[in-house]
């Protein structure tokens, strides 16, 4: 398999802090790698190194076969970058932002305008194209930023937390755009704090924590790594919840979590399930709901890192949607 992005042993220090502590990762051509991790895990530092904005203290990386430090200029002609903060010139109009990049990439004035028009219509910004970007909403700015990174038809696209701070609707819109790019054969490296986002989009996932890769694989593989499935039982009579808990604790050896009127516990050995059902039946406890499912990525993340992934920044999303 050919790799569009390959990194080995990337290290970056900021004073005492090791932002990256020996990161290896690969992205096969035409696939989407999700880099999942909480704030401060080193995701952005890794993207900045791969996008030639930052030199690593140790290790090396190639994009499209070119070394990111020694052949930075060649790497830059292959990549597109969309950062966490929408990097558009707010005083310019949407069209001008894209024309500027087209001109910088060597397109003629007419070609730049044509390309700008194409991208604006694809991103549903045609009507706003003549307005200064500072009048755009958060979601519109993010789309313009993404459009800007596509002017040069990149082969490899870096999306650094592209949906952070967006409302749910803009987020799913952006996911559709990313899927469209995948269909065009673009290789994508996407960082995110949202497990759902990685689950929805990524072919492969690497999990970052404290500047290291602590797990990697497909979404299903990661879900299997905890080696557990989740058993949930909701008794018809809420008063029976304690009985359910006692039965589970007795048979499995772990006390279940009792939030939400149901008992939730990880099970590794599936033969315990019929045993629990039989015991509850003997005790006259009727289950309104009984389910066995794979762990969610959220639970995997908790199992891997010992802490939860970031909560959704709902407040921030609202704030960013107000045009500045």
């Amino acid at each position, binding site marked *: 398999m050919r790799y569009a992005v390959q990194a080995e042993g990337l290290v970056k220090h900021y004073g005492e802090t090791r932002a990256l502590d020996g990161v290896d990762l690969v992205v096969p051509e035409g696939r989407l790698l999700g880099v999942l991790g909480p704030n401060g895990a080193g995701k952005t530092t890794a993207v900045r190194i791969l996008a030639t*904005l930052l030199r690593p203290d140790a290790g090396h990386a190639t994009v499209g076969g070119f070394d990111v430090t020694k052949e930075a*200029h060649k790497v830059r002609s292959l990549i597109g970058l969309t950062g966490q903060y929408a990097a558009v*010139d707010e*005083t*310019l109009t949407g069209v001008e932002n894209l024309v*500027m990049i087209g001109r910088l990439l060597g397109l003629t004035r007419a070609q730049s305008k044509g390309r700008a028009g*194409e991208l604006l219509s*694809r991103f549903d910004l045609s009507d706003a194209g003549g307005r200064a970007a500072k009048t755009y909403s958060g979601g519109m700015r993010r789309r313009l930023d993404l459009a*800007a990174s596509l002017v040069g038809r990149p082969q490899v696209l870096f999306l650094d937390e592209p949906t952070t701070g967006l409302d749910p609707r803009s987020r799913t819109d952006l996911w559709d755009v990313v899927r469209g790019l995948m269909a065009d054969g673009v290789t994508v490296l996407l960082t995110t704090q949202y497990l759902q986002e990685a689950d929805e989009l990524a072919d492969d996932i690497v999990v970052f924590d404290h500047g290291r890769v602590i797990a990697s694989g497909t979404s299903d593989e990661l879900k299997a790594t905890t080696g557990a499935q989740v058993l949930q039982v909701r008794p018809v009579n809420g008063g029976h919840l304690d009985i359910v808990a006692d039965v589970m604790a007795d048979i499995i050896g772990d006390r279940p979590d009792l939030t939400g009127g149901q008992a939730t516990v990880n099970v590794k050995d599936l033969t315990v399930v019929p045993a629990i059902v039989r015991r509850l039946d003997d005790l006259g406890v009727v289950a309104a709901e009984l389910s066995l499912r794979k762990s969610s990525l959220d639970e995997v993340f908790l199992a891997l890192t010992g802490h939860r992934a970031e909560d959704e920044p709902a407040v921030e999303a609202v704030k960013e949607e107000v045009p500045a």
Partner: protein
Amino acid sequence: MTTLTGAAPAAVIPGRIGPATALRHTMTLAWRSLVQIKHNPMELLDLSVQPIMFLLLFTYVFGGAISGSTSEYLQFSLPGLVVQNMLFATLTTAIGLSTDITKGVFDRLRSLPIARSAPLAGRIVADTLKQVWAFALFVGLGAVLGFRIHTGVAGVVGALALLLGFALAMSWLSVLIGLTASEPEKVQIIAFSVMMPLTFTSNAFVPTKTLPEWLQRWVEVNPVTHLADAVRGLLSGGPVASHATISLIWAVAIALVFAPLSLRAFRSRG
């Protein structure tokens, strides 16, 4: 649906950038800094308010007290005001750069296959054109108020060239501030606390001999004094050579100190 990507890029990716291409990148980015003025003419007003206000205030408020007549004072102070305004205006480079960095535009530009110098050079070209505008405004408005040019076109062009040369040297300091300030507002604070004392402790607005003796010694060294005197000579007549030479020595010294520091700050960002 139009294809967003996919089409193979040019078969041969050039490894480096020639001077002509670098110049084209610089001009595109200079255009980007100036095009705002086109659909927001207030920008131009922003550039003009300070010169107009200072010119009117200094002439009509201080003129009588300092020189005994407003017209005499205008002839003395206009070159000083031109120099002061030029120095303040060099900081637009710092503010623009700092804004680009905080907004992420700087990173976007640096991730493009363009000349490394273009984001800096583009700003400086645009800001130089703004300097020309401010100079023209001073000379034009000054003429309306009664400022008389006793030299000629060569003198005016010479004064402008000297001011732009000094501004170019100062833009290295401006770049350093822009790259290192954490936010654009900080640049304003630095600008005010450095440029105000620097321009006021000179003979830009008052004759040196009216100052306390200890201050006179600094005033005689201050490049603002020499620039103001050189511009006076170039516009109203009088000695030019020694003042212009000292101004240029200062310019070279400033560039020699701040160019390496700026370039180091620029490289350390990547």
